[in-house]
């Protein structure tokens, strides 16, 4: 049963706890330049958008890599890097439509979400439940229910209006 990170943008408060635990886990320091999940913020609009690797099946970053350093790990359903091959050209950085690959300026390497080897800490620590690590095939359930409810309410209202 493969799991995926599902982000509910409307629940994100921009607390950046996910960024903190991510960089601490991977690099041993709390540094927002060294984490694999990033919160893009528009404070004046009240918009907080966590951006993270979507672990694409047909990943543009894998296609773009000129040394075949990026590959898919089918066991966990994630994209990983073979740093032995990586030359740091950063083509993957521009190939990613989500801008989900970062360049760590300290370690001088490209970094992106590796699902913490199966127990993503961001999901564990997110207090509002904006980040969840759930079964891929039922990841749409909550949206489905929300939409279904709206559909039911509007259909009911229309039926009443006609009566």
């Amino acid at each position, binding site marked *: 049963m493969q799991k995926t990170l599902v982000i509910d*943008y*409307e629940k994100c408060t921009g607390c950046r706890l996910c960024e903190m635990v991510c960089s601490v886990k991977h690099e041993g320091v709390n540094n927002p330049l060294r984490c694999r999940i990033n919160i*893009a913020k*528009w404070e004046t609009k009240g*918009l907080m*958008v966590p*951006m993270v690797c979507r672990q694409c099946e047909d990943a*543009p970053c894998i*296609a*773009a*890599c*000129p*040394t*075949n350093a990026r590959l898919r790990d089918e066991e966990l359903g994630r994209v990983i890097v073979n740093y*032995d*091959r990586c*030359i*740091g*050209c*950063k*083509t993957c*950085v*521009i*190939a*990613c*439509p*989500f*801008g989900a*690959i*970062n*360049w760590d300026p300290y370690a001088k390497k490209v970094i992106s979400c590796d699902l913490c080897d199966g127990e993503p800490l961001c999901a564990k620590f997110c207090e509002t439940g904006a980040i969840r690590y759930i079964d891929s095939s039922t990841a749409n359930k909550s949206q489905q229910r929300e939409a279904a409810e709206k559909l039911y309410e509007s259909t009911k209202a229309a039926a009443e209006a006609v009566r």
Partner: protein
Amino acid sequence: MKVIVLGNGVAGNTAASTIRQLDKQADITIISEDTFPEYTACALPHYISGEHSRRRLFLRTKKDYAAEKIRTILGQKVTAIQPERKEITLDGKSLSYDKLIIATGSRPVVPPIPGVNLAGVFTLKTPGDADKIIEGIGKAAVLIGSGPIGVETAIALRKRGLEVYLIEFLDRIMPKIFDEKPSLMLRGILEEKGIHVFTGERVNSILGSARVEGVVTDNRQIVCDEVVMGVGVRPNVELAKQAGITIGSLGGIAVDRQMKTNFEDIYACGDCVQTRDIATGKETLCLLWHNAKREGLIAGSNCAGIPKTYLGSETITSLDVYGTHAASFGRIEAEPNQEEKVTVSERVTGNGYYRLIISGGKVVGAQSLGNAQDMGAMLYALIKRESLSKINQIIESKPLPMNPLYHRAARYLALQSIKE
């Protein structure tokens, strides 16, 4: 099914691996003149600089081929293809095939400069070339041509402590992928590191008796121990041409969107083919690694009976210039044939410099120096031919749509200021 793949580059290898993944029984053989196993030319400058060991150039070993049950015949030249008999001629013998995949790649252009045949004058395509360049290291080196290969090699040799001279015929470095402003910024970085850059200058002759001793340009004479020429590559299509395979107007093998040639059982992929640009649809020779890899996958898939379509080539360049990430995709403002009118939107931020090329309300190109993370969003706007007004709409709409990438892009690209 018996498949023969001509060429041991990324296109040929990807095609072979793709067929193997889809067909466990297929008989697959890769034949190449190269004696090396699959390598990546993109890492050669890093090997020359000493940052990468030689071993890291190679992407496959004999064990990998054995594990995939792919046979390899290296160091031998195929002299003919007979499409009607479905045979190729190798070392005087005929080998039959059910399907043939031509992935013969490209070769560096050698400009007809007097003295170009002297020892110590190199092009850079193979690990062998890189070995010779390292062997030939003396006090000074001249690079002819300032495309990404010339620039990366100049940096590599400078890191080795040589006096390096980078000579470009056009008026700025990397003239096909950067407009003047970002090009000048990159030139500044190179010059700061002591690389001598001369633009608008042509090398007229290479001096020396048995070995190169110097070069003469329009403006000066430079003493050097080796010369590396990076002035472009040409598709290897002679074998295909002789066999009656259609060659396109730009000099690459003509293929349809399934990477098939004019012969039913012959496919072609990689640097040897002519394709269409994914965004403009125009015929192009876009001889880059990621296109070759994708074409190999498409050719292999179709060959194995699983239909797949190649959507087109993408002009994407990304290189590291002494720690500054320089990236470019699509077209630049200064195109030689000014058919379409473009506007330019540029922005300098704490993180770097962005330059968007816009035509008809759509992104047709972008260049970036520094943090290029948001280029990806613009790249897909280009590929999808999304209009900027639609992007603005997506950004302004409520509630938040599940497409955060445009929001991310907008932050750095000040799209709100572009209303079309």
